[in-house]
C-alpha cells in the first residue's frame, strides 16, 4: 500500500511540461511503473505474458516520439523482469536510449539488477552503475532547470536503493560512495568498516550446529571403548550446557565497480567453559571438566556477482583465513593450533519463467597441521565441509483460500540441501551429515513462515591397521541420527519493502525494519542415544536502521530469548542472545 501511495504522490506531482523538442512530451517515469502495475496486479503469470505479447506487437506506434517509446519500452522491461524473460535488460537499455535525459529509467534499470537478478545477492556492480547514472542525470536536470517534483521522488528512491545496496558493507570510511551519494561515486573506490558483536548464553553455538547431535556425540564418545566406557545419568544430564559465548567479527571492505569487493577479515571467538577437557570425565562424579575455547581468525576474501545471462548469475565468494585456536584439543586445554582455512561459496541462479532456481555450494577446508607425536598414522588432522543447496522460488501470484483475489507474495521458496562434515583424526573419521528440506513463505504483507525438516546423522569410521588387510569400519557405539523439525514465524512490524523511499530520520538515524521472530524446534532421536530429545521455543526482535547522518551505515540489532526443555532427562534451559551489527555478511 505504501508503494501505491508513493506512486500516487509521484504521479500527482508530475508536471507535463515541454521536453527537449527531439524527445517529445515530458513523461513522468512513474507512468511506466503505474502501467506495469496495472498490467500485472492480480494477474497470473500467463496473463502477464499475454499483456506483454500485446505490448510487444508492436512495442510502439509509428511516429510516436522517443519519450513515449521510452515509457513503453520501460513497461515491457518491467513486465519481462516479472515473468523472468532473460532479455529484459535490453528493453531497459532501449528505454534509456530513447529518453537519455530521464533519470527514472535508470532507476528502473538499476532496480532490475538489484531486485530481480543476482544469486542471493544483487548484481551490485551493474545496479550501482545505473543508480549513479540516475544521480548524474538528476544533477543535469537541476542544472538545466528541468528538475520536476517527481524527480525528487526518483532521487529519494535512488538513494534508498543505494543504501540497501551497500547495507552489508558497514561504515563508509571514504566519502565517495557514502550517503548521500553523488554521481562521481561510481568509479571511485569505497572503503568501509564492519563490526558485529554477538553475545549469547545458549546450547546452540553461533554456527547453528545441532545441539542434540553435539551432546549425543560427546556422551557416546565418553561411553565408547575409546574412553571411560560408561557414563552416569548425572554426567548425561550435565553434558547439556549453555556456555557464555562472545564473538566479534571485524571486516574492512574495499569495493570498486570494476573489481568487486575485497575483504580483510578478523574474527575473535570466546566460549567460556565450552569444551570437555577430558572425556574420561570425572570418575564417580557428575562434574564435567570444562575449559574455554578461544579462536582468532585473520584473512582476506573476495566476492562478486557475475551476470552470465542468458545462462545464469554466478555469485563467487571465497576467503582464506589463518586460524589460531586454543582449547579444542582433549587433555590439553592450553594447546594452541595454527592452521589455514579455505572457504569457497559459489552460487548459481537463473529465472525459469517467473520462478527462480538457485544452486548454492559450500566447500570449507580446515587444513590443520598434523599433531606432534602420537602414532604416525594417527597424526593427520583435517576437516572438510561440503554442502549443496537447491532452492526453487515461486514468485508467481497465488489465490489463497482466505482471499478472493490473486495476491503477489515476496516469494514462496522451496529448498532442499545436504551437508557433509568430515573431521579426520588419523585413521579415524568423524562424519556429520545433514539432509534437509522445507519451504519459506514470504507473504506480501507482514507474515513470513518457514517450515523445515532436517535429518542429521553422525558416525565414526576407522580402520584397524593391526590386521593385514584392513577395511573401513563403522563404530556402532558412535552412530547417531536425529530429526529436527523447525518452524519460524516472522512478523514484520516495520516492513522495509513497503517504504521504497527514505523513512523519516531522527537525529540522523532512520528505522528501516522491525521484525518479531518466533522460532520453534523439536529434536527427535532416530538412531542411537535419545537422551537429548528436546523442544525449544523463543522470541527474537530484529531491528534495522540506517545512520544517514554518518554516511548511511546500516545497523542491525537482534535480541532473543529461548527456552529449551530436554524432556527425557528433565532439564530446562533458559537462554538469551544479543547481537549488534554494523554491516554484516551471511546471517
Amino acid at each position, binding site marked *: 500500500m505504501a508503494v501505491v501511495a508513493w506512486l500516487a504522490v509521484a504521479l500527482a506531482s508530475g508536471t507535463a511540461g515541454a521536453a527537449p523538442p527531439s524527445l517529445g512530451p515530458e513523461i513522468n517515469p512513474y507512468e511506466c511503473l503505474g502501467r506495469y502495475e496495472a498490467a500485472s496486479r492480480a494477474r497470473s503469470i500467463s496473463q502477464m505474458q499475454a499483456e506483454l505479447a500485446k505490448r510487444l506487437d508492436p512495442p510502439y506506434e509509428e511516429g510516436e516520439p522517443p519519450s513515449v517509446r521510452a515509457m513503453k519500452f520501460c513497461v515491457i522491461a518491467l513486465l519481462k523482469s516479472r515473468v523472468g524473460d532473460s532479455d529484459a535488460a535490453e528493453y531497459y537499455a532501449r528505454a534509456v536510449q530513447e529518453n537519455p535525459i530521464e533519470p527514472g529509467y535508470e532507476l528502473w534499470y538499476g532496480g532490475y539488477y538489484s531486485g530481480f537478478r543476482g544469486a542471493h545477492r544483487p548484481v551490485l556492480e551493474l545496479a550501482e552503475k545505473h543508480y549513479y547514472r540516475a544521480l548524474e542525470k538528476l544533477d543535469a536536470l537541476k542544472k538545466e532547470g528541468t528538475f520536476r517534483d517527481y524527480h525528487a521522488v526518483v532521487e529519494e528512491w535512488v538513494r534508498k536503493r543505494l543504501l540497501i545496496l551497500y547495507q552489508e558493507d558497514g561504515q563508509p570510511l571514504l566519502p565517495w560512495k557514502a550517503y548521500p551519494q553523488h554521481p562521481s561515486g561510481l568509479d571511485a573506490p569505497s572503503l568501509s568498516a564492519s563490526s558485529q558483536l554477538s553475545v549469547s548464553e545458549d546450547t546452540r553455538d553461533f554456527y547453528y550446529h545441532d545441539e542434540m547431535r553435539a551432546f549425543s556425540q560427546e556422551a557416546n564418545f565418553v561411553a565408547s*571403548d*575409546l*574412553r571411560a*566406557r560408561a557414563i552416569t545419568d548425572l554426567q548425561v544430564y550435565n553434558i547439556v550446557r549453555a556456555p557464555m559465548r562472545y564473538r566479534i567479527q571485524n571486516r574492512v571492505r574495499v569495493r570498486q565497480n570494476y573489481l568487486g569487493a575485497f575483504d580483510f577479515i578478523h574474527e575473535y571467538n570466546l566460549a567460556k567453559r565450552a569444551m570437555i*577437557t*577430558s572425556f574420561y570425565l570425572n570418575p564417580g562424579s557428575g562434574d564435567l571438566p570444562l575449559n574455554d575455547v578461544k579462536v582468532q581468525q585473520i584473512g582476506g576474501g573476495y566476492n562478486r556477482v557475475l551476470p552470465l545471462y542468458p545462462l545464469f548469475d554466478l555469485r563467487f565468494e571465497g576467503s582464506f583465513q589463518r586460524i589460531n585456536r586454543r582449547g579444542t584439543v582433549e*587433555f*590439553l*586445554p*592450553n594447546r594452541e593450533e595454527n592452521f589455514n582455512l579455505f572457504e569457497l561459496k559459489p552460487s548459481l541462479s537463473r529465472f525459469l519463467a517467473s520462478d527462480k532456481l538457485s544452486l548454492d555450494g559450500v*566447500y570449507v577446508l580446515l587444513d590443520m597441521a598434523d599433531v*606432534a*607425536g*602420537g*602414532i*604416525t*598414522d*594417527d597424526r*593427520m588432522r*583435517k*576437516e*572438510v565441509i*561440503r554442502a*549443496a543447496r537447491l532452492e526453487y522460488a515461486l514468485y508467481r501470484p497465488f489465490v489463497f483460500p482466505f482471499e478472493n483475489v490473486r495476491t503477489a507474495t515476496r516469494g514462496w521458496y522451496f529448498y532442499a540441501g545436504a551437508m*557433509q562434515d*568430515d573431521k*579426520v583424526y*588419523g*585413521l*579415524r*573419521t568423524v562424519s556429520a551429515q545433514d539432509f534437509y528440506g522445507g519451504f519459506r513463505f514470504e507473504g506480501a504483507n507482514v507474515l513470513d513462515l518457514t517450515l523445515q525438516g532436517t535429518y542429521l546423522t553422525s558416525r565414526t*569410521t*576407522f*580402520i584397524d*591397521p*593391526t*590386521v*593385514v*588387510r*584392513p*577395511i*573401513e569400519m563403522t563404530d556402532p557405539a558412535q552412530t547417531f541420527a536425529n530429526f529436527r523439525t523447525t518452524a519460524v514465524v516472522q512478523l514484520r512490524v516495520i516492513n522495509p519493502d513497503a517504504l521504497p523511499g527514505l523513512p523519516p530520520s531522527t537525529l540522523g538515524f532512520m528505522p528501516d525494519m522491525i521484525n518479531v521472530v518466533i522460532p520453534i524446534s523439536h529434536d527427535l532421536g532416530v538412531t542411537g542415544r535419545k537422551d537429548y530429545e528436546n523442544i525449544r521455543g523463543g522470541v527474537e526482535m530484529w531491528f534495522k536502521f540506517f545512520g544517514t547522518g554518518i554516511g548511511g551505515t546500516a545497523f542491525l540489532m537482534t535480541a532473543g530469548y529461548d527456552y529449551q526443555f530436554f524432556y527425557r532427562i528433565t532439564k530446562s534451559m533458559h537462554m538469551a542472545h544479543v547481537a549488534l551489527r554494523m554491516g554484516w555478511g551471511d546471517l
Partner: protein
Amino acid sequence: MLRTTPSRRAASLRLASVAFVSLLDACGPGSPLDRVGHTGPLDTSFAVSTFFSPSGYMGDGAVPGPLTADINENCKERPPGARGDCYRFTYVPSTMLWSGVYWQYPSNNWGTQAGWPLAQRVDDGGTLPGGGNLPIFTTVKFQAASNLEVDALGSALQVQFIVGGINGGFMYSDEFKFSKFTTDVSTEWHQYSIDISGVPFKTVIGGFCWVTNYPMFTDPTTAPVHVLYLDDIVWE
C-alpha cells in the same frame, strides 16, 4: 528439438547423481586406507613413536598442568642416529608426587581395545618348557637424560622404565611386564635397554612407559622441577 525420454531422463539423473556424489567424494578428506602405513603384526625393528602414542598420563600427570610434554621440539640435542620422535617431559610436582606416561596403542587405551599383534618365532632355544612361540623382539632400547647433575653418590634422576604391564581389568591386557629401575638419569645421554626375551606374548598395548616420583612428604611447592629427555626408543 531434442526430446528427453523418461528412460534417458532417468539415466541422466543417475549420471548426474553419480557425478555429484563423486565430486563430493573427490573434494573430501580421502580414505584412511590410502593413508595407512604399516598393516598387520609388527614384524621388524621399529621406533616406538611410529606405532605407540604417549597418551597414558598417570599420577600428577592425569590432570592438565603438572606434566607437560614437548615432542620433537625443545628436545635435548639428539644422539647420533636417533630414530623416532624425541621427547622432553617437564614435571612440576603436585599432590601425588609421582607421575608417568605410557606409550599406548591405540591412544589412551587402558585395555578396552586390543593392542598391536607381534610377529612370532618358534622357540628353538629351549627357553620355554615344552616349546612354543616367542615374539621376534628381544630388546627395547632407548636413550634418556634429565636436568639433574650426578651427585656425589653417582645418582641423578630416578626413573622406572616399563614395557608392557597395562592391566586395568578390562577385556584386553598386556600379558607381560618388563621394567628397569635406574637412579642415574643425568644431564648426559645414556643408553638403556630392557630385555624382553624369553617370555611368550602375542600382543602389546603399552609399548613403553616411564614413571618417576618425589620422596614422600616432599613439599611440592618448593620441590625442584624434573625434566626428563627421551630419544631413540626402539624395539629390536
